[in-house]
């Protein structure tokens, strides 16, 4: 991964440099338009811009838009402005900075969006290093440890398009459950005529209180957690395409990957270019194909993200085979905690499609009492068939 600085000493003036900086931020994944450069110039005029700290604060207020961006901002600012005007300098990511955007350094501290920087368009080398990343490999498998494997090898654009369609249908099955009935509501979108007239009897036929009604809104939010450990790598193709499709079809959906730790990939998958989204995701999925710690990952999810993103309207979709290296009690504990938030929990297990499959894996057995739905899913077609089940949920 390289961060490229383009601040040239020969740039004609501050305007060109500010424009260059905005372009530099854009290249590093911040979503900025032309208007921001304009606004930044106007803002700089309001402070003593000669002072680097003040300029930094101004740019931070103007150019960042969320917590993750604010955390990464300092490193990006330094790499552009604090390089003495060197051109095309490759910056080796420093491991010390707390807001480092390097994937490996961001292990547990900030897993979520840290990997979104760098140039997602540059493929990693496909060597598939077999170094010691895969801690706790769990079943005898001939699959290489895919640590740092580029996920774009696994997923084709056509599949994403297909998955998008499936995800859209699933989403519709889950969310569009508005009834044709309208119910009385304090703040409805139309007048509840019958009730209004009935009430008007009390005021001499004058409808003084206008009562309202509305359609009961039952939108559901899908939160997908996908296991990408070694034992799941054969199914990864389907599931990753499904995740990508889901995120593209449903703006409220939320997606995570886990193996030995949990990564939020929602932001990365929202990239307009489907393949670049997968590229960004593979930058984050360091440790892909390694061991699996389902329990701890789910627990981490329940303790952090779930508090913000999961409520009674959510459906938590877990895509995993249930082979866990941590103790099964932790899965049960995490799921119990999740259920307390009022959400539905669906577990899709690719192994369940096998004949004679029984959920004997300790992790799976521990999870069963907490599931609203336990279904097989190997292929996109299987996922599409879920539609029927979900309607009944």
């Amino acid at each position: 991964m390289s961060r490229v600085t383009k601040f040239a000493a020969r740039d004609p003036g501050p305007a060109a440099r500010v424009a260059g900086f905005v372009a530099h931020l854009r290249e590093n994944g911040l979503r900025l338009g032309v208007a921001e450069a304009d606004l930044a110039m106007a803002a700089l005029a309001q402070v003593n811009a000669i002072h680097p700290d003040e300029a930094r604060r101004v740019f931070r207020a103007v150019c960042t838009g969320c917590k993750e961006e604010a955390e990464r901002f300092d490193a990006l600012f330094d790499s552009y402005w604090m390089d003495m005007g060197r051109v095309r300098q490759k910056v080796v990511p420093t491991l010390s900075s707390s807001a480092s955007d390097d994937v490996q350094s961001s292990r547990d501290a900030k897993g979520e969006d840290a990997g979104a920087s760098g140039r997602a368009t540059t493929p990693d080398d496909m060597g598939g290093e077999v170094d010691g990343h895969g801690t706790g490999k769990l079943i005898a498998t001939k699959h290489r440890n895919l640590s740092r494997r580029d996920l774009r090898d696994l997923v084709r654009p056509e599949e994403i398009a297909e998955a998008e369609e499936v995800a859209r249908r699933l989403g519709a099955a889950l969310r569009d459950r508005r009834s044709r009935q309208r119910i009385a509501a304090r703040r409805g979108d139309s007048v509840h005529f019958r009730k209004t007239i009935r009430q008007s009897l009390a005021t001499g036929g004058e409808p003084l209180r206008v009562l309202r009604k509305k359609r009961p809104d039952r939108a559901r939010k899908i939160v997908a957690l996908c296991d990408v450990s070694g034992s799941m790598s054969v199914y990864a193709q389907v599931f990753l395409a499904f995740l990508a499709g889901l995120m593209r079809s449903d703006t409220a959906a939320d997606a995570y990957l886990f193996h030995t730790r949990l990564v939020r990939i929602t932001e990365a998958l929202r990239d307009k270019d489907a393949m670049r989204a997968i590229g960004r995701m593979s930058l984050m999925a360091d440790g892909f194909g390694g061991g699996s710690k389902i329990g701890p990952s789910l627990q981490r999810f329940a303790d952090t993200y779930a508090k913000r993103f999961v409520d009674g309207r959510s459906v938590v979709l877990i895509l995993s085979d249930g082979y866990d290296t941590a103790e099964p009690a932790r899965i049960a504990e995490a799921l119990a905690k999740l259920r307390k938030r009022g959400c539905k929990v669906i577990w899709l297990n690719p192994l369940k499609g096998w004949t004679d499959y029984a959920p004997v894996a300790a992790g799976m057995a521990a999870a069963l009492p907490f599931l609203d739905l336990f279904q097989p899913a190997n292929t996109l077609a299987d996922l599409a068939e879920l539609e029927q089940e979900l309607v009944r949920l």
Partner: protein
Amino acid sequence: MTWNDLKTALSSEGYVASDDLAVALQLALSLGRPLLLEGAAGVGKTEIARTLAAVRDTRLIRLQCYEGLDAAQAIYEWNYQRQLLTIRAAAEDGETGRIVEDRIFSRDFLLERPLLAAITQDQPPVLLIDEIDRADEEFEAFLLEILSDFQITVPELGTIEAVTQPIVILTSNGTRDLSDALRRRCLYTYVAYPDRTTELAILKARCPEVEAHLADQIVGFVQKLREEELEKTPGIAEMLDFAAALMGLGIADLTENPAVLQSTLTTLLKTQSDQACITREVAGRIAGRAA
């Protein structure tokens, strides 16, 4: 007014702002952009709007967002009852339909809600749109239009232009992701929990009667408590409650009586499991380390 002046003015009203926040506020004022504040609950996001209104000696108009918030609650609504009564009265006076119609769809019959109120003030007010993440996405899109044009269209009445442009502050607790469009329109600052010196300054500004030694212990204790794994991390308001509780009980030193310390923790720990995990011994240990 530079951002330093603003910071001083804020602190004279009892709000200790970080440099980042002060610069962002100053820019929001001078560029007329909305300011989006994000951060955990209890770091003083709402308070900043209140203080800013006090500093600029202007009205604070607050719109609390919630799920299902709609235009009728946020912008305007017709006063149906009054309209009906007017129609009845007009019928008895023998007025014709056209005149009555014009009359009942006039500004007199319009109930102002916060957003409409905010753009029709003579002196620019501070408009606080609190917890925008709780409102639906549809409402967010609607808000975008108002924040960029500062005009509101009422179909029966026409477009109402802003008399003055309000200072807009939005806050979010991050219960859902906000749209990019909204983020782009706003200046942004992430408000973190204050560091030790800042929090000490806040405590001194709000409770000047707390002695220096105890204040130092209180802030140290709360800072250490935030590092524990809690379901609900105590915010600044909780810290101030805690200080007030200790003052009320007449305690001069945190470490002197663990039982009393434990009983005052109800001001800091707001869930059953948090209270269970900070036992008397743990509280004593934290107090010891903080001192």
